[in-house]
């Protein structure tokens, strides 16, 4: 299952990472080298073996779906890159970029 440069472009897009063409080729090589070692796993007979779910003695407990959220020591404007009226500001979606800012 060799990773192609197209695969790298695809997964970079899924991961929201901008990758240059020369870097995409290098990453394809790196991933192929790493994944070659993972092929060892294909030789293991795992028929009927349950996938690991939680590793503690108690499995994976789920917290009750209750609030309240914990109080913050400083407000969002102390660390948000861009904030207005308590809302995080982000650039417009490209499909809306021709519209005027309201």
């Amino acid at each position, binding site marked *: 299952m060799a990773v192609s440069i197209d695969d790298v472009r695809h997964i970079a897009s899924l991961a929201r990472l901008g990758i240059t063409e020369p870097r995409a080729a290098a990453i394809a090589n790196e991933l192929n080298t*790493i994944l070659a070692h993972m092929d060892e796993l294909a030789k293991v007979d795992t028929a009927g073996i349950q996938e690991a779910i939680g590793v503690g003695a108690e499995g994976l407990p789920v917290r009750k779906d209750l609030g309240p959220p914990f109080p913050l020591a400083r407000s969002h404007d102390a660390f948000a890159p861009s904030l207005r009226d308590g809302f995080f500001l982000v650039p417009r979606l490209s499909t809306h970029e021709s519209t005027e800012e309201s």
Partner: protein
Amino acid sequence: MTARSCAVVCEETAAGRVTAADTVNEAVGRAREVGAGRDGLNAFVWRDDADALSQAASLTDRLSDTKPGAMLGVPVAIKDNIATLTLPTTCGSRILEGYVSPYEATVVKKLRAAGAIPFGKTNMDEFAMGSSTEHSAYGPTKNPIAPDRVPGGSSGGSAVAVASGVVSIALGSETGGSVRQPAAFCGIVGVKPTYGRVSRFGLVAFASSLDQVGVFGATVDDAARGLGVIAGHDPMDSTSASIAVPDYTAGANVGLKGLVVGLPKEYFPASLDPEIRRRCDAAVDRLRALGATVKEVSLPHTDLAIPVYYIVAPAEASSNLARFDGVRYGFRLEGEGLRGMYEATRSTGFGPEVTRRILLGTYVLSAGYYDAYYRKAQQVRTLIADDFRRVFQSGVHVLFTPTTPTPAFPIGAISDPYEMYLSDIFTATANLAGVPAMSQPIGRIGGLPVGGQFLASHFDEARMFTAAYALERALGAEALA
């Protein structure tokens, strides 16, 4: 030179012979003396000595009406991926440049409640992804024993803070060996508790089914005291267990008669460095002399741990690190539209190793590859956990192994990512199975420390500490020679 032990600082502070401020000043002086800052060993990336002194002063003021805590006046270094209120939390990454957390990790809160003073944030491989502390946006950390060599990673800064005598206790985090491996490389003690033993609230997530906060100590006793303070259930972390925390120092002077120690043969392959084997053999002889029964056991799926780990951990990381997108906190770089901003921010903010692992994780989770890689890895992980369960159910109390296949390697010596991943070959299994493990010094090779590792069954850290205390006593100065 090591810092005064936790027990001594507590006792002297409680008796009024020293103040917490004296101890903090000692740490500041020692940090200066060894060059622990960015232009030296690069152990600390953020420090505010005035704030630490102010916390120490307020502790002294409170002493008259407060019961002395288990960490009274003890400065503790904190890894840069554990949230603190007064110092930045940047995970060694440019993407969190300037970020100061609006909340505090439970482990830090517990340390402060016990009288400890957070003393600086320590350097680390970016987002804890690395085994050498070379992959930090703030440059590599150097091993104080041989400054041309790595301290191990990813918690290398915390290990160096203890090994260079600045502090006696430091917090790190473990995903595949990030406390035990640097502890072995720097000649100190490093503990990874059972998955669920310590709250992760405020630990920046890397791989959530593996991550645990761990403790470094100059000695077994320092580490035992550190873990005793931070362990326990936390309602803020649903994966923390409601299981009573024993006194880990109770085994300090206990013999090993009746203890069954397993030596997993897969951790002593024919290719193992003969000098490391010799140090392990000497340690095992001491365990026998202390009354322990030693027997060979098998953990047959050990050699699959690295392939499994490097599928599961990057897969979880690719999801956890999706939150770093320039919207709510940290670094932002504008691009074309919203998507351009995401891509510019993440491509510039993350370093090459983090980018590689996010891509690897995204690939193994993507349509067409999930079953072949991720599902398969999770099935083999079950086999690895079953290996441990079977051995501990057979009457073995603790396992003993080398912590690492080699001593600390030179900075820049390993450029192949998979070769670097193999540094974790003896440590990643404990994270995959969720069992506790610890490393302690068992000697040196050409002046470089060698670590021996104890592993125990889930929540049986106390027995592991009993064995470690006894081995430390028996080895004495030989552990550091």
